[in-house]
């Protein structure tokens, strides 16, 4: 009975949803209003080749600051909730293939993450995916080597500094142009690495912040506490 209800209720919702979508909200229709401005003026105004990046970092920079804050609070809450939790230490030894390939792959994973967040204004990617790739490299090291430990103090210092740099860049814009996160550097030529004003600087700060935050979170979850 419960199972029947649990199957029928989502089915009803799917049918109503598809009926509404088919009749009132057709696919492949141009619905841009404010996005027209971003597409036509975004490249001259910000110098960023990637329009999504210019929206995330400049036009809606407050959103990104809030997003970084939410991620920081989640990492903080994760640590606070798991504080003092009992850890079951099961001995799982990684195979030699994993260990040796990890040793050679780890620098390249870090390099790829740095590449992703340095080129956030030119190619798909940016600070958040780059930081997650770096954290994934740290997770791989934890899985391969049982006695691998990160220095949590240094990670926390990196994270705090990156957050301060993000807010500091915004405050410099406030001091020069009178609006928070204003672009105070020259736009430069499109499709060059030194372009788009403050976008690469902010994405470097976000990349360091997310990488150290999620790396510390991985370490917090996997390390055995006495």
């Amino acid at each position, binding site marked *: 009975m419960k199972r029947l209800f649990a199957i029928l209720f989502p089915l009803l919702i799917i049918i109503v949803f598809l009926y509404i979508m088919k009749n009132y909200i057709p696919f492949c229709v141009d619905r841009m209003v404010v996005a027209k401005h971003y597409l036509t003026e975004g490249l001259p105004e910000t110098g960023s080749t990637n329009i999504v990046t210019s929206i995330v970092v400049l036009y809606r920079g407050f959103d990104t600051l809030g997003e970084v804050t*939410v991620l920081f609070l989640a990492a903080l809450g994760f640590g606070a909730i798991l504080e003092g939790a009992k850890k079951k230490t099961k001995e799982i030894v990684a195979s030699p293939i994993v260990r040796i390939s990890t040793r050679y792959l780890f620098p390249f994973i870090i390099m790829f993450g740095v590449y992703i967040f340095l080129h956030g204004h030119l190619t798909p990617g940016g600070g958040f995916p780059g930081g997650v790739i770096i954290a994934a490299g740290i997770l791989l090291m934890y899985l391969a080597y049982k006695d691998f430990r990160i220095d949590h103090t240094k990670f926390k210092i990196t994270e705090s500094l990156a957050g301060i740099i993000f807010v500091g860049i915004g405050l410099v814009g406030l001091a020069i142009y009178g609006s928070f996160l204003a672009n105070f550097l020259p736009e430069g030529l499109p499709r060059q690495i030194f372009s788009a004003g403050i976008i690469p600087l902010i994405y470097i700060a976000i990349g360091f912040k997310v990488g150290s935050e999620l790396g510390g979170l991985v370490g917090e979850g996997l390390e055995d506490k006495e």
Partner: protein
Amino acid sequence: MIFYIGSGLLIGIGLYGMLYKRNLIKIIIGLDFIETGVNILIISLCYVKGGTAPIFSLPSLKPSQMVDPLPQALVLTAIVIGVAVLAMALSIVVRIYDKRKTMDISKLKRLKW
């Protein structure tokens, strides 16, 4: 249209998981299914016929050939918030399992009234 069907199916599967499953981990997986479905729906709502990604990687690209960049930026935010929610929920599940030695939501009597 296939994107609408896919996102509807993902939302339906997630709802089924959240309504019927008893295991806390499976309920959280259902929540994540719903989130993915909603993200795909928002992205597919603003697809323009024949449009390409909103990146001026070639000088010959015109703004009229591109899809709407705004929902992509919003979904980028939503994905990060989703990861944060997932981490918090899973850490709470770890604590509950530590204390009660069960992940079955019907055995957590103190949640009921």
